[in-house]
């Protein structure tokens, strides 16, 4: 089957536009993307590899996944096509909403809306934190993970700047997890 490059790029762009309009967040897009991409423009094996890599590297998951799929289907131009498709829908939506909301900033009902939303937003963050903790690629919660969690909690408590704490945790990861593998 020979298809032109332009057809592949167009296909990619359309696919990512669709996935990003229909899915509410990064991790949620994986299921939809799987149905759209696997068997059509890439193999299952490549897809699993892409998901694995986007968990393993820093930065937004959804974007990394999009770029990996783009690369598998269309090389480096595919990467940029996928990126474009993933960026356009949230950008347009967010610009519209931001402009409207800034105008409403001093309305009283908006304050109460935010006051009601705050506890739910806090709950959302707790849920995501828990999912993240559980889903970190080590399957079992062992004493190393607890050690990192407890020591970073102590550091945050002492108001050490958060980027420094995170870098420290990463280095601790290299030291602790590295020893097990060697």
């Amino acid at each position: 089957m020979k298809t032109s490059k332009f057809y592949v790029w167009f296909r990619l762009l359309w696919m990512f536009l669709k996935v990003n309009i229909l899915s509410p967040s990064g991790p949620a897009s994986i299921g939809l993307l799987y149905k759209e991409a696997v068997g059509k423009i890439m193999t299952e094996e490549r897809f699993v590899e892409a998901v694995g890599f986007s968990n393993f590297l820093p930065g937004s998951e959804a974007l990394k996944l999009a770029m990996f799929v783009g690369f598998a289907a269309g090389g480096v131009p595919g990467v940029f096509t996928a990126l474009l498709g993933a960026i356009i829908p949230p950008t347009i939506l967010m610009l519209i909403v931001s402009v409207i909301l800034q105008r409403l900033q001093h309305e009283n009902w908006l304050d109460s809306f935010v006051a009601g939303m705050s506890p739910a937003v806090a709950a959302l963050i707790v849920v995501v934190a828990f999912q993240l903790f559980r889903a970190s690629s080590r399957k079992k919660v062992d004493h190393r993970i607890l050690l990192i969690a407890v020591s970073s909690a102590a550091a945050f408590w002492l108001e050490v700047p958060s980027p420094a704490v995170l870098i420290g945790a990463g280095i601790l990861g290299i030291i602790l997890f590295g020893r097990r593998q060697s």
Partner: protein
Amino acid sequence: MDQLLQLFWIFLKVNLLSTSGPASVGLLYHETVGKLVTEAQFVQAVGLSSVLPGSDALQLAMYIGYAVGGIPGGFVALIASILPPTVIILGVTVILSRLRRQAWISNFVDGLAPAISVLMLFTAWKIFEKGGSTGWEAWAIGLVSLAAMASEKIPERIVIIITGVIGAIFLS
């Protein structure tokens, strides 16, 4: 101009140090609230980005960027958020086979995960505490929405919208 540079640096940093979109909330809170945006603006940004379709992280970035520096701010935040993963992916796809054996990067990210979770818990508490009232209404809303989201039966964005409406009606 200064603020735009500051935005650019913050989002570059946040996207290099967080493993995924939602995980960036904790770090972003510490970097921006009280400095560039208010608590209320941040809560709006998180709420909105989980309600609207598309990548959470990008929407959060753009909303904060817009609040700080208008439309140019929105674009600066967007570009700074995109840059690290793009550069990394382009690098990785080129040296993919070699990197696969580099365990230390994976260990670094694995070490980040528990720390990010802890940071998010701190952030959640701060948002809850400063979100106006910590009376019984806020606890009720918080606990019910926590249960609803943890059960995974009700989509998170529906929960967020409902709590906002409840707030607009009852908390005024």
